[in-house]
């Protein structure tokens, strides 16, 4: 089953096309993964730049570096880019594409050409988003939520932005569709559902949400476009439409979308923790099922974004109650991860640091989510910077750190190179400290009454904004350290040949670094669960005898 690295890697094989076409027309899941990786990192850089400039603007009250219109466009673009172009595809389309087939012992995804089509749709959507910036009228200034009626009144380029989100939605749907069929049809012999690695489980749960919830935002954004173009009145209050209904439809997708973003990150953490503890995962089935539970409950809590719009009392109670319940499966995951550390043999390499960072930051994100789920408190902190902080703790501290963890974890496998471990850890600490300095003051500000999406603020909030802006600088230093480290590793001449640097037991660690086109020379037959560290038991027996 092990092969000794003689096969041509996916980076080097010669296909039908040459040059750049060998990449942008390739249907190999690993090449498509790299296309996604490069594109999404590019957009991440753009999104970070917008965020950085916004923080700079807020360093002092009043106008500092930009005017209000620019600021409003910046937070809109920051949101659209980060959510639709980085966080949503970040784990499923990037790492899922590369590792899902390998983790379940398959040679590719079920529909390789549709996989390529999703990437092209992604690029098309991204192009539309870019175009909306440069067309006359200026970039959209509606916020990524496109709330009606502002989004039908605004004279900026809302249409291209809506279309971009619509197309990106379909890209995401096709990825999800591909993954579900891949998991159902292409598992290696012996790979039962309960022998699948937990990353595959989390992608499976994610894929269902992608398929079932995304069309709702598709149609909703389409209706907003039709509203803008023809004035049919479906949401326009002037014609009898209901702006609250728009919010319902928007959040029916957009709340589950948060789980599209976080679930795969949880899957990555579930991979990393047992490997670096060198023992089997604690409560495999509970973690697997909690992913499904999150997907299910996550589809039923959307209106907790709308407690202040004046919904019926019944709806307030139901959605608040369900919101509290959705915390349970996440809590189960966290407890099981911590329990997996117990009696392990823990090596604190960079991927584990990021994973533990994830647990800490995501926990804060989760707990502050509970605070918002309480109806009376929500009345106060809704639409304040408390929400901004909570959201970033979940999406950046959670998913973002999950993506960084995945990068450090799978980097040697993907590229056959190794980064500098010490620098990676330094990078982590900068990111961790910078992150908390940047976002924690927002909790305090929000509780004190600082509304969000504010270009300007009252002088009493100055100190918090100042600290937060300084935090953004530390965070960016961390990002630079991390990405320079990767870049240096990629450029280095020495290739890394150890196929299992962390001592993982899942299938990707049995094949060569820079896997071949076919991934496996011979499709493996699976006889045990994914994290069975047999040597633990053997050693124990040896000690006994």
């Amino acid at each position: 089953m092990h092969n000794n690295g003689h096969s041509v890697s996916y980076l080097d094989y010669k296909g039908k096309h040459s040059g750049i076409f060998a990449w942008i027309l390739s249907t190999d899941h690993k090449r498509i993964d790299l296309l996604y990786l490069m594109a999404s990192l590019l957009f991440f850089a753009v999104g970070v730049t917008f965020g950085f400039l916004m923080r700079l603007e807020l360093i002092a009250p009043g106008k500092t570096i930009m005017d209000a219109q620019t600021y409003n466009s910046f937070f809109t673009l920051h949101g659209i880019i980060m959510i639709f172009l980085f966080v949503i595809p970040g784990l499923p389309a990037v790492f899922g594409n590369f590792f899902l087939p390998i983790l379940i012992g398959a040679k590719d995804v079920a529909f390789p050409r549709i996989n390529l089509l999703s990437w092209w749709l992604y690029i098309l959507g991204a192009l539309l988003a870019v175009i909306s910036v440069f067309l006359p009228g200026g970039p959209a200034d509606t916020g990524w939520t496109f709330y009606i009626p502002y989004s039908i009144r605004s004279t900026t380029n809302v249409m291209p932005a809506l279309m971009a989100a619509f197309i990106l939605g379909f890209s995401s749907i096709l990825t999800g569709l591909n993954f579900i069929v891949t998991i159902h049809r292409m598992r290696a012999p012996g790979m039962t559902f309960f022998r699948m690695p937990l990353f595959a489980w989390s992608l499976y749960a994610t894929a269902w949400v992608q398929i079932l919830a995304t069309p709702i935002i598709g149609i909703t954004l389409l209706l907003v476009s039709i509203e803008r173009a023809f004035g049919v009145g479906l949401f326009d209050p002037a014609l009898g439409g209901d702006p609250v209904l728009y919010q319902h439809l928007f959040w029916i997708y957009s709340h589950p979308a948060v789980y599209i973003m976080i679930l795969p990150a949880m899957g990555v953490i579930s991979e990393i923790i047992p490997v670096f503890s060198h023992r089997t995962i604690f409560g495999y089935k509970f973690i697997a099922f909690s992913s499904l539970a999150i997907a299910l409950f996550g589809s039923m809590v959307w209106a907790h974004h709308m407690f202040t719009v004046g919904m019926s009392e019944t709806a307030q109670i139901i959605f608040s109650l369900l919101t509290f319940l959705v915390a349970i499966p996440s809590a189960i995951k966290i407890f099981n991860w911590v329990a997996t550390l117990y009696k392990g043999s823990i090596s604190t390499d960079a991927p584990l640091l990021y994973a533990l960072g994830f647990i800490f930051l995501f926990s804060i994100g989760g707990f502050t989510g509970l605070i918002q789920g309480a109806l009376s408190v929500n009345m106060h902190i809704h639409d304040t910077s408390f929400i901004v902080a909570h959201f970033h703790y979940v999406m950046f501290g959670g998913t973002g750190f999950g993506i960084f963890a995945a990068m450090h974890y799978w980097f040697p496998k993907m590229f056959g190179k190794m980064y500098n471990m010490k620098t990676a850890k330094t990078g982590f600490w900068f990111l961790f400290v910078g992150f908390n300095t940047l976002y924690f003051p927002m909790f305090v500000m929000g509780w004190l009454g600082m509304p969000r999406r504010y270009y300007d603020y009252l002088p009493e909030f100055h100190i918090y904004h100042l600290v937060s802006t300084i935090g953004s600088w530390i965070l960016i230093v961390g990002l630079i350290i991390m990405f320079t480290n990767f870049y240096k590793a990629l450029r280095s001449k020495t290739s890394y040949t150890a196929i299992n640097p962390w001592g993982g037991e899942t299938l990707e660690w049995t094949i060569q670094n820079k896997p071949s086109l076919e991934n496996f020379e011979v499709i493996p037959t699976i006889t045990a669960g994914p994290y069975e560290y047999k040597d633990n038991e053997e050693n124990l027996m040896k000690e006994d005898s």
Partner: protein
Amino acid sequence: MSSIAEHTVEHIHRDDVGSRLGMWLFLFTELVLFGGMFLVYAVYRFTYPHEFHVAAKELNTSVGALNTIILLTSSLTIVLSIIAIRKNNKFLSVFFQIFTMVLAFGFLINKYFEWNIKIHHGIFPGSEILLAKGNGEILFFGLYYVMTGLHALHVGIGMLLIEVMTGLTIKGRINSTNYVRLEAAGLYWHLVDIIWIFLFPLFYLIT
């Protein structure tokens, strides 16, 4: 070490069940897409029951019923074309596929005249006659145009899809042992039919 070429040959395998599974998943996205609009419909119908009632009187039930019959029949013909190809009767299969397309075209023509008459009467989004009516009626016609319009778009896409299948059948690439693509097109067509089965009573039969 075996060469890559051998693997590529091995790699080309067919999984009809997988393809159908994929198609069904795609249909769910279409279903939810329309589902979103049904949600909008349900809410406004609930808010303005009387206005919807009045507005629906403007629609011609016979035209709707005729279109229902056309679509149901086309659903039958597409299913028959699959049976024909499974029985290795290429001619009959192509015949039924073309028949399906003719019916689909008939549906669209019918729809065209229906819309045309409405527009001539001055009932279309943003028209003065419509804006003079109550909010509920504006919403009813807004929904009517958006939902039936999007449905008609799907009928058009379905026609194109079947046309491609007809081409493949004639070339023999769809045959009695490999017809999963025709099945997928058929599934799509049936979904378009199912959506109409709901649109029909919701718009034409609430008078």
